[in-house]
């Protein structure tokens, strides 16, 4: 699995972006998006805000689970919304579909080396989000941070990477 994690502010602006790969099944934590579709990640994440804005009113949870998928690359998007209306989006895409030219989601799932069940993945993502949320709150408590400005803290980045390593 390859992951693209983005925190989006209240004005649809990205505050923080991070790309990583899975550490499970001997993964090395390096993302392997297909080069030709890598630029689509932002588009897909951005498009899923439509769905997010709709489902955020449906319940009181902060973790919104999988909200969207993008069949052409077999990507799925999970979302988490913070109390201050910052949105965490995690785009995950199975890895070894790069050889087949048009992954339908079915085959992609079959080929993906995931021994984990969907429920377990879901739980892992939830934990990841919670962990990141924790560090996020701590980071933006910095008095010099203003709402909707990008976060450039290397400490925060390393914490996100650590959470990713821990859960994904």
């Amino acid at each position, binding site marked *: 699995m390859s992951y693209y994690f983005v925190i989006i502010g209240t*004005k649809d602006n990205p505050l923080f972006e991070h790309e990583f790969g899975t550490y499970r099944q001997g993964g090395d934590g390096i993302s392997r998006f297909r080069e030709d579709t890598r630029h689509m990640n932002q588009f897909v994440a951005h498009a899923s805000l439509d769905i997010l804005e709709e489902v955020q009113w449906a319940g009181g949870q902060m973790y919104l689970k999988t909200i969207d998928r993008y069949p052409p690359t077999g990507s799925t998007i999970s979302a988490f919304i913070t109390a201050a209306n910052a949105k965490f989006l995690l785009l995950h895409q199975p890895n070894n579909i790069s050889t087949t*030219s048009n992954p339908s989601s079915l085959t992609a799932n079959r080929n993906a080396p995931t021994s984990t069940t969907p429920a377990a993945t879901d739980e892992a993502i939830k934990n990841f989000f919670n962990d990141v949320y924790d560090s996020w709150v701590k980071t933006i408590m910095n008095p010099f941070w203003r709402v909707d400005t990008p976060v450039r803290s290397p400490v925060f980045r390393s914490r996100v990477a650590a959470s990713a390593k821990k859960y994904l």
Partner: protein
Amino acid sequence: MTPSQDATPIPLPITAPALSGIDESIKLPRRRAQSPGASLASLPDRRSSPSLSSLFASTSSLAGSRPGSGTSTPTASTIPSSVFSPVSRSNGAPFPGPGFEGTEELRNLISRSFAPHVGVLASEDTEELVQQKGFQGGLLDLIRPFGEHITGKLAIRDSNGSSKVVDDFGIRFMGLKDGLGYPSFPRKSAEGVYDSTNRELNSGKPSDRWSRTGGDISHIEEAVGRHIAYAEMQNTGSISDYFNSRNISSAGWEASPFYALYLRRLLSGLPLVPHETFSHPVACVIAISSHSTSPIEELRRLYTSTNISDSRLPQWVNNEFLRYYVLLHDEDNDDIKQSMGLYEQMKRNFGLHCHLLRIRSAQAVPSDDESVRIPLCEWMSASEELAEIEKREAADDDVDPTPCIFESDATAIRSFVRELVASSIVPLMERMCAQWNEQILSRRKGLSGRFMSLSKRWTPFGASSRNSSGPMSGGSSNYDSLQGFYKPDTPEALMRKLADYAFMLRDYKLAQSTYDVLRSDFNSDKAWTYYAGASEMVAIAALMTPNNMSSKARIENIDQFLEASSYSYVTRSAAPYYALRTLALGLELLRLRGSSAADDAARWASRILESRLVGPIGHALFTERVSASYGCRRGVGNLNSGSRTRKSALWALLATSEWIALEKTDLAEKALHRACALYGVLPGAFEDTPVDIKEAEDGVDKLGLPMRAYPLAFGEMKAHIDSLREALSEQRRMADGYDDMAETLMPADDEELEVEDVISESLTVNARPNRKSLIGAQMPFGVDVAPLSPVRTRDEGEEGFTESDKIL
């Protein structure tokens, strides 16, 4: 692009080597003179366009403003009437125009596309008589265009006895065996050039006949591709409203004439298959002429030939259709008294289903006052259209080859068709509906019928015989699983016929309930193709019912039907054409349901893309469709929650890159413009096509969407959009600059670009597309020599359809 460049003709020598090199290339009207620059000098070059442009016009509408005398001077009206301008559909023909402006047009398109089919069988002297008039295809060619629209209103009674007035009813005349067999045209000879010899004079009957069969997706793609190429070429003359309108409101976006054409071709020429009876003949016109010496015997011979000899349809077609006897009277040569006597005799022998058709045998010349051009068929199949385009390009003359007939003949044929429909076909269908409804359907639906079907399913006998695979005679299942059809006299086949008749008579409620009963029957018989067909039609009938279907449960039902149908068509029956039809109709009808069903529509559209049912052009068109579907979803409240602006923008952008890959610059620009407007980054990068920003803003307002309050903040997204813009303007510049370049060098070898090269180049700065590519010779599937059937692609791997994915 400036007018002076527009007027520049495309010099032939540059395109010629490429044309011979690449077989699928699109030939444009030959330009003879080589006088670039001056607009006056280029006028003669346009001279050859009437014949072809009328064809392109005719495919989307019955061209009304076609010049009467075809040749001499290309008047201003020649070109505007050509491609898809609204002018050409204002000639009183009440069918929907090229695009769908409202919801009704699409509904009409669908209800008109499932029309009763009527076979035509004529004696030899009749065919000779008609051929004298200039119709090589005989009687069928003469009357076919008139069957597509019946003049006047028609009252149809539905199963409840209430009658309903329909004013756009039509029938399809066909050769009796037209729908059989898979279309074999266009064939390519070894050199890769179209083998056009065997259909020159319609002597090659087989290819001519098969070309009337639709159902081949690759042909549809090709036909639409030619239309796009033609429209883009004509666009230089600033006549194509579609390209030039910068209106990105949902209406402007959705009225893509090419998509409408795609749908229409998808629904034209339904093949004759066991699992649906739409294309099975409802009636057969048996025609003799007054030239005949022994007319009654001739009629008998023709009648028996429909029953036993070579005109007999396969055994899964119900052969008990109506025979309608027509006497063609030759006004010029024969005595009307004699014919009247003969006609009386026919009436006595055959009953009421007779008609005396009085036409003149002389050939009408276009310059004559009384002559009218025969309208072109609106519902010709894609392969037929391709054949027609080919023929006209090959003919290379200035005359519009559409034959003319006398005004009086046209009137006579119209009234003949009207009488045939109003007093024979519709009453017959109504009667059969009522009869079958009473005798079969109500029995099946009633208590005993339910019990029977239950016992059939659960008794051990039923179970065992159901699972064994042998032809059951009178057993529990009527399905002949060895040959894969129901005999036409079994209750299932008759019920399917009932449902189809009801659908064609636009009694959607009855049709829906019947299809629903059939679904379960077919399912328990494991007749998968039939099952898929019934599921498809139950969903479409339900969506065609005008009542509002707000309840969630019903939408879910429809989902389930569509899912079952497309799955069965693709996986169990390997019938991608039908799957595409199912999904496309389902998606369009769902989209018409408005906001609540827009997500579903978009989902089905992307399902079409995922399942790779379509070729590159279809892929791009359906990508636009996804965008349009999302675009018609409105948000609610101040937060505008639930709108799908961003998704719509994303898919519009995807469509852009697909059109770029196909080198359809105009369409790509249009898609990009929409994407940019939705993303809130207004295009300023089109140096050569300056965009009125205010207009674009209006467009967004018209969409009913908020102007994007937040500018696009993602850096890579902006960069990507910019790179697309750059690629596009590069493509445009090359296309424009081509004329100048052409004078000095002949880059003939540049044409043979690999598909991948085209794509990568179009996305990088050193793109080298040129005018020829605008013409469309490099449609990626054109380079692929294999005919692009989706089944094939599925088998052969991923070459044909996927390059568009690679660039995503």
